[in-house]
């Protein structure tokens, strides 16, 4: 596939060089896991991006359209670094990535360094899923934009909703994965104890996606006797944890960040009922508006938007809003610096509510929805009789976390 796009890009480039045409499409390079174990999530990002672009290319927000180049990072940061170089060589303006903060951390640094060394040929890192705090904290830079939530924003939403509905309880346990993301969630849950009016009765950090049997961790959780277990775990780490807890008859509520990843609810079965999850989109979140969005997505892509797809589509539309404010340069090319300045002030309406980019740290303020797994949900998931029943829609402003003091963004002259 890469070769196909490369050929296409080369053919396009030679065509442009020979002809009199002077405009050039905007090239966005998606660098995701497109093969191997974690390919499923990469493909979901791709689907959402393609759906978002249908609207943008239909409206002609850029005269020569927007094209997607696909790169397979094979699930690792080092491969991702190579693919960033390949994408730059292929003339990419924007690099999109979402799955895993570990890979995102590599990309954001590569992009920052490239921009330092190549003034006038800047590229942008368009983050649609890496949620560790450092992206808008110590690692923040002018050409990074995060269109998804982060560990803190999502936690605020979860706590707000669960506190309001009196489902949080007073004793909280936190379990997480041993890398930047898991440590962030662990630290934040402790910091927000006062906000949520609870005490943290225990915490544990474990290896990432290596553990087959979570029963020993369930023993630890049981000893601490919490009301609610908050976890940022994803993929098999979440599924195995929930199953192990369910099998041992442990009576706790799980409050998770990623339970809506396809397959989780089906596999956990009735164990999942009553657990909470925070997401950027559910078809039932905002009545008619979200249902209409979900139906249109299904009509075009063959599935309802789930997991990370809601905010990814919104992010792409945000890119469209920014592109509308930028004119092609005299050489027909996109000036990424101008695009970045335009993107800083983007604010637009979606089916979920207003999405706006925050200028100070390039963190999107996006509406989030907290839902509980229930048989009453209108849209069932995974072919089960269960689905996510929203309990609270939280606006971008309410979920927003303060700008981190560690973010020292160097802004270029206009």
């Amino acid at each position, binding site marked *: 596939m890469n070769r196909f796009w490369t050929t296409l890009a080369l053919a396009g480039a030679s065509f442009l060089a020979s002809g009199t045409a002077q405009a050039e499409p905007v090239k966005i390079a998606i660098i995701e896991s497109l093969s191997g174990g974690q390919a499923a999530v990469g493909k979901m990002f791709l689907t959402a991006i393609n759906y978002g672009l249908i609207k943008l290319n239909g409206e002609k927000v850029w005269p020569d359209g927007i094209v997607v180049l696909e790169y397979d990072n094979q699930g690792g940061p080092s491969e991702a670094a190579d693919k960033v170089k390949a994408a730059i060589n292929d003339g990419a303006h924007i690099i999109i990535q979402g799955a895993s903060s570990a890979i995102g951390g590599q990309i954001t640094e590569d992009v920052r360094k490239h921009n330092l060394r190549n003034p006038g040929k800047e590229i942008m890192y368009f983050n649609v899923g890496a949620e560790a705090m450092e992206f808008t904290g110590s690692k923040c830079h002018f050409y990074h934009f995060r269109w998804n939530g982060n560990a803190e924003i999502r936690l605020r939403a979860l706590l707000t909703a669960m506190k309001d509905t009196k489902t949080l309880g007073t004793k909280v346990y936190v379990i997480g994965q*041993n890398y930047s993301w898991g440590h962030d969630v662990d630290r934040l849950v402790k910091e927000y104890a006062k906000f949520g009016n609870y005490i943290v009765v225990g915490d544990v950090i474990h*290896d990432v996606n290596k553990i*087959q049997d979570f029963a020993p961790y369930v023993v630890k959780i*049981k000893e601490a006797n919490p009301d609610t277990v908050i976890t940022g775990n994803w993929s*098999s780490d979440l599924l195995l944890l929930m199953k192990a807890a369910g*099998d041992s008859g442990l009576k706790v509520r799980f409050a998770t960040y990623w339970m809506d990843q396809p397959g989780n609810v089906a596999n956990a079965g009735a164990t999942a009922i009553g657990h909470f999850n925070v997401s950027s989109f559910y078809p039932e979140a905002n009545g008619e508006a979200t249902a209409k969005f979900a139906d249109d997505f299904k009509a075009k892509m063959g599935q309802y938007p789930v997991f990370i797809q809601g905010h990814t589509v919104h992010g792409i539309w945000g890119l469209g809003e920014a592109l509308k404010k930028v004119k092609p340069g005299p050489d027909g090319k996109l000036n990424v610096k101008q695009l970045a300045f335009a993107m800083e002030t983007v604010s637009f309406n979606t089916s979920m509510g207003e999405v706006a980019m925050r200028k100070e740290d390039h963190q999107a303020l996006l509406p989030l929805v907290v839902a509980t797994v229930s048989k009453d949900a209108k849209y069932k998931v995974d072919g089960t009789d269960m689905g996510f029943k929203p309990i609270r829609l939280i606006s971008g402003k309410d979920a927003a976390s303060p700008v981190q003091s560690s973010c020292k963004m160097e802004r270029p002259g206009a």
Partner: protein
Amino acid sequence: MEFFVVSLLNGVIHGLLLFMVSAGLTLIFGMMGVLNFAHAWFYMLGAYVGFTLTRTVGFWAGLIAAPLIVGLCGVLIERYMLRRVHRYGHTHELLLTFGLAFIIEEVIKLFYGDFPVNYAMPPYMKFAAFTLYETNYPFYRLFIGGVALVMFAVLYVLLTRTRVGIIVRAATYRPVMVEALGHNLPLVFMSVFATGAALAGLAGAVAGAFFPTHPNMAVDFGTLVFVVVVVGGLGSLEGALVASLMIGLFISFSAGLNWSLADLLTVVGLGGWAREVGGLLTLQLSTVAASMPFLLMLLVLLIRPAGLFGERQ
């Protein structure tokens, strides 16, 4: 006490599951000298076959048919692939099984998709075997352990107490002599490979209904079964059992312990300093539980390179 008992139980059951998967691997290596890289993928295949059959002919029929079908795959792979590359040496056999692993994984994804499938045990097996310190202990965990023990007993008796076992063991040491005595050596090898594959298939069909069946389950197990076989000694069935149990217990206990190097240093009065330094010194044992098997492998390789029950070559 509660922690000790529950961790012991969990560790033993997890270890027995590990043994089920690695028994076939060590058997194949011991008898044929083939390091079957695709072994954990047979385990995954078994889970998916079990999942498919459960929906059509029922759970128990699936449990019986899954190892047979995976065993049949083993027959075809040995007869039409491994046998051809055998004369080029072990590297080629390893590469062949390495490639097979990829093919099995991609084919499974093609048919079943990228996400976990809904393979569940029958509802009547979903009950608590007993309640231990107010925690239900799922019956199915005991079932997994039971199947593993039965499997070990049958294999052991088969290899040490029957004529078939005598021929198989003889073929390991003196293949030429066994052939000269009129035994069909290629058939013996094919049967051993098929049995090894079938055992992994059985493990997959049993465990897949408890732990989720998903396209990553082979990768998750892949390295661990090699650790088991190396620690136990290549080719030793008893070694595999002991190593599996050790690893299961190691993971189970270290997951529950919040010990760190800083705690150790507290004994000599340096705890405060260690906590200030942080980093590696305050890393808790529970955080690195899943890496413990590799530490064990390192130790065994340093002290007894042939493995616990392995024969020195």
